[in-house]
């Protein structure tokens, strides 16, 4: 299981990475989560500009006939979507921390990121 040390995580299997804009974070689901879900066939995105709340669903993902919710790691606003996933949702399986990113969020409180899990904390949370 790949778990980069430079990312922050949530117990709901989201990861976030800072971007050039200090208030904007790129988000996706972890390698562990994509492995648990199996072959991903569809992602249901929010719209750019949509408000999201930490810990609440912001979209859904379908794999092997199972629809699961995607939980936002932060409270804020959606600033970008990875539209490449519309044509190739399996990018989430192939590169969960790279081309398989899902959304970018402008955090209402960038300081909230510090409260998220580090790699060791996420590893503990999933019992790995």
């Amino acid at each position: 299981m790949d778990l980069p040390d430079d990312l922050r995580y949530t117990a709901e299997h989201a990861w976030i990475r800072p971007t050039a804009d200090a208030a904007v974070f790129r988000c996706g689901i972890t390698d562990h989560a994509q492995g648990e879900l199996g072959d991903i066939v569809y992602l249901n995105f929010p719209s750019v500009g949509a408000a999201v709340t930490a810990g609440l669903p912001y979209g859904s993902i379908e794999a092997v006939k199972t629809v699961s919710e995607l939980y936002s790691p932060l409270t804020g606003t959606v600033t970008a979507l990875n539209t490449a996933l519309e044509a190739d949702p399996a990018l989430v399986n192939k590169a969960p921390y790279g081309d398989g990113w899902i959304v970018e969020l402008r955090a209402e409180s960038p300081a909230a990121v510090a409260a998220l899990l580090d790699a060791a904390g996420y590893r503990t949370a999933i019992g790995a």
Partner: protein
Amino acid sequence: MTLAGWRLERDESPRDGASQMARDAALAEWSGAHGQPALRLYRWSRACVTLGRHESARRKFAPATLAELGAEVVRRPTGGRAVWHAHDLTYAFAAPASSPADARAWFALVHGVLARALQRLGFAAELAPAARAATLRDGACFDAAVGGEVLVDGAKVAGSAQRLAAGVLLQQGTVLLSGAEDQRWRIARARGRRCEPYPRQANQALGGWDAAADAVVHAFTALGGPPLPLPAEALEALAAAHRPSYADPGWTWQR
């Protein structure tokens, strides 16, 4: 995974598609609130096509054709591809679940129970070997089995799809009692913009709804003990809140 304390609604009243979807959503809500597994067995008041939650229905099916053939169309809360419901035993199962691994375990348990039910009726039911999931772009649910679905004569006769949300699994599925989906389904798909070869289907009828429902209840009981009834009034109240969404063409034809 345990079925201990499981609840049952054996719904003898045929209902329309939107009502069935709403009642299934209510089942999940009730199961989540009470932390108990629950099963509904039901039938349809008329032919109904259920679409998968994320399926591209507008690209695959012509609404006018389905209407002409007398079919209602609804969109499920669960994943997967389209199913034509007519002479089948349809079920919804809900249970606490916190991860995809839980969902897979319930998937295996329920399909094992369905296979044992069909075996009890005298059919050589078996579970499909592992297979890669089909895309949502083409085809229908019964065109192909994924691993763990139920086969008779090598053809899929029972399939299911799931939704995992807020700590509750909802699994919706159906057993084709005629051994094949309705012939009208073939016509509907042939008139659509995309059509694939008609799938292989079981060449024998699997019996009537009552006998199949009896066998499913027996197989669940063998695993979880006698069921308790679901509180019909509570379920009705929850379903009433969900029904407008499932009856909304904007929801059904969103994609």
